[in-house]
C-alpha cells in the first residue's frame, strides 16, 4: 500500500509507542497507559499486527538478547514517516471538527 488512507487505532498506537523499543507486553501496557485505559490491545490482535507491520517494514524486531525469549521491536524510518503523515491527517480531522462543532 503506497497511498496510505488511514491507520486503524491499533496500528496508530502500536507505531507510536514503538518510538521507544518495546516487547509485546510492554506495548500493551504503554498503549493502555497513554490512552488512560481506553485502548486495550488484546494479545491475538497485537501479535497479528506486529507480524503485518514487520512485513511492511514499518517496524523491525531488534536482535534478541541471549537470555531473553521476549522479542523487542522498534519503529523504522518508513514507519516514522507513515506515523507523521497520519498525524497531519488527524490534525486536519480535529481542526475541521472544531471549526464546525466548536470547541466544547
Amino acid at each position, binding site marked *: 500500500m503506497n497511498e496510505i488512507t488511514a491507520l486503524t487505532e491499533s496500528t496508530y498506537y502500536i507505531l507510536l509507542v514503538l518510538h521507544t523499543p518495546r516487547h509485546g*507486553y510492554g506495548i*500493551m501496557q504503554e498503549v493502555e497507559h497513554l490512552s488512560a485505559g481506553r485502548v*486495550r490491545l*488484546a*494479545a491475538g*490482535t497485537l501479535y*497479528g499486527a506486529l507480524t503485518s507491520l514487520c512485513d511492511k517494514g514499518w517496524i523491525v524486531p531488534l536482535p534478541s538478547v541471549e537470555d531473553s525469549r521476549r522479542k523487542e521491536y522498534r519503529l523504522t524510518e518508513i514507519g516514522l514517516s507513515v506515523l507523521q503523515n497520519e498525524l497531519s491527517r488527524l490534525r486536519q480531522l480535529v481542526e475541521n471538527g472544531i471549526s464546525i462543532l466548536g470547541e466544547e
Partner: protein
Amino acid sequence: MERKTIRKWFWVWEFEKEEAWLNAMAQSGWVLDGVGFCKYHFIPCEPGEYTVRLEMRDHDEGYLAFMRETGAEYVGRMAKWIFFRKKAAEGPFDIFSDIDSRIAHLNQIGKMLTAVGVANLAIGLGNSLNAPVASLGSINLLVGSLLTYALGRIHGKKEKLERDRMLME
C-alpha cells in the same frame, strides 16, 4: 485433585457459545484444565477467578510464549482450537480487540472448513460413482454438505462484521 470431565458437542459456528459456556463454568467454580475430542476437563476454582478464551490458530510456539508473557495460561488444544485461561485479578482478557482481527480469525476458520469440505465432497463424489463404495461416498457427501453449511454460518458472521467495518473500527 478433584477433576471432572464433561462431554459436550459444539458446532464450529458455535465457538462463541462454547466460550460463554466455559466462562459460565468458571463462574460456577469449575475452570477448564484440559481438553480432548468433545471432552472438557475441569478443576475447582474460586467462582469468577478465571476468564477462559478460545481461538482457532495453527501451531505457533512464538504465539504461545507471547500469550504466557501477558499472563494467560495455555490450557490445551482440540484439533486447531486452542484454549487459554487467565486469572481475572490480572486484568481483562480478550484475544481480539478490533474488528479487523476478528474478521481475520473468521477467515482462518473459513479456510480450514473449505479445505476439509472440498476434500470430503471430492471423495464423496468419486466414491458415489463407484458402485461398491457408493454408501461410503454418501457419508463423505453428507460431511461435505455439513461443512459447506458451517462455512455459510461463518461467512454470515464475517459479513456482519464487514458491514460494521465500513463505518467503524
